[in-house]
């Protein structure tokens, strides 16, 4: 039984440790109905479980229009300053526009903190040469880049492709989104061991039993960040995964926010 067992079982928000969600989105989508997809609903669900800060990259940018998505991101930051932060979404099929968006978003608001890439949704391979300027931008500024990754059936951004880029751009901190999916845990820790700039992400709907414990025992809790996929996924179950995992309090603090603070100046 963990120190947060009673909190979680009684629906009491965790407040004695800061919780930062580095993997979230915003808005509606063609592929599914999301009841609580607006930023007000997202902040409400954050409040219900104790998430202090969330970094969003709106679904609109992933599904269709990166400018629309990034505008939604900037608006949500302004509407909920200190709670919502931004990840600028880029797409290698629009290399010049992506670079413009990076310049615009990072200069327009100090709370844009990361870059988000979703290779399989944009059908743009991470190794596509049109991505190079985006990586140079991130590398020059030593930014954090969150990439949706899955197993080797993802020909655009699987874990091995992701790791190749991590090797090529060592100044970037690379978050392996979803840590390669439910079957990807073992390969994720192998790649994280080989590349110090790879960070594992806890975000998953099909969350394997003992995955958090496995990550911590294999690579240490300093290389794992907390993510939720909010609002694709409700953020509250992800609190349960970390809060009830058989790991130490310090491990939980690292995952919930200490690692995020080491990577990003909030």
């Amino acid at each position, binding site marked *: 039984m963990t120190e947060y067992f009673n909190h979680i*079982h009684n629906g009491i928000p965790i407040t004695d440790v800061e919780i930062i969600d580095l993997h979230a989105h915003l808005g509606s989508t063609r592929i599914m109905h999301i009841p609580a997809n607006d930023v007000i609903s997202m902040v409400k669900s954050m409040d219900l479980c104790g998430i202090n800060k969330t970094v969003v990259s709106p679904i609109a940018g992933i599904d269709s229009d990166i400018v629309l998505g990034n505008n939604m991101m900037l608006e949500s930051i302004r509407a909920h300053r200190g709670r919502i932060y931004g990840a600028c979404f880029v797409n290698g099929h629009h290399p010049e526009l992506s670079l413009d968006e990076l310049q615009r978003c990072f200069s327009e608001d100090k709370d844009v903190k990361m870059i988000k890439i979703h290779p399989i949704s944009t059908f743009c391979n991470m190794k596509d040469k049109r991505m190079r300027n985006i990586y140079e931008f991130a590398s020059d500024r030593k930014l954090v880049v969150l990439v949706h990754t899955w197993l080797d059936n993802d020909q655009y951004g699987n874990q091995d492709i992701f790791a190749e880029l991590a090797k090529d751009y060592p100044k970037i901190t690379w978050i392996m989104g979803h840590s390669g999916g439910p079957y990807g845990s073992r390969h994720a820790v192998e790649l994280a061991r080989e590349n110090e700039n790879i960070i594992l992400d806890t975000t998953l709907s099909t*969350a394997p039993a003992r995955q958090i414990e*496995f990550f911590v025992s294999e690579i240490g809790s300093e290389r794992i960040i907390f993510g939720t996929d909010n*609002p694709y996924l409700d953020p509250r*179950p992800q609190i349960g995964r970390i809060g009830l995992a058989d790991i130490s309090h310090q491990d939980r603090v690292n995952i919930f926010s200490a690692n995020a603070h080491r990577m990003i100046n909030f």
Partner: protein
Amino acid sequence: MHKLNYFDCNCSVGRVAYPYLHDIPDVEGLLKEMETAGIDEALVYHTVARDGHPPIGNSMLMDEIRNHRELYPVWVVLPHHTGEMSHPDKLLPEMKKNDVKAVRIYPKANYHSFSISEWCSGELLGALEEECIPLILDLETLSWEDVNTILENHKKLPVIAATCTYRNNRYIYPLLEKHKNLFIELSRFMGGGAVEDLVKRFGSHHIIFGSNMPQYTGTAAVALLTYSDIDQKAKKAIAGGNLSNLLNGAWK
């Protein structure tokens, strides 16, 4: 506030050929997962009944959970025509004798390869309907069209849609509008605000707690429910009350 009593409708014992991460094949492993998450009781099927052959797996299940009062048996069943499983006239008394609480079917070609249409499964599903035995369907192994067909043909059969995902609302909502005997299990039903929205539209009695342990962790489903913005009565019903009510309605 008191901790909710969790009665999980979606657990298994047994080895799996391709585990997500750890293979947790035995009852002790499942009980450890339940303890970590704070889950009290569970309906349990055997993975060999799903991935191997149902009669073998059902038999293994009865042996393995025999001494565990918090675990209740769920059999995986087949239509009787090939003789692999008894005719419902014999199967159901056998189930009752073994205190089987619910059943699961895996009709798709890469599982048990049979039709859910009446010419094949009608007698089996009809017999289950007659006794109000809950039928648990794994949405990773059959379609929403199949679910609708079963619900249309057997309007008094309690059907629990397990492992339906956060992407399924556009199927679930019209089915819940039509069918009072459909129940939604929580283990992957985790879209933003999904629980609150379902309760608001259809009431809490259509939601059944489930975790898919030990393939998944049970900790996520617990926090989904405890942190949901619904009243305590609804949480209690979802955590275990609704499933208990369904089971109490069986075998009468």
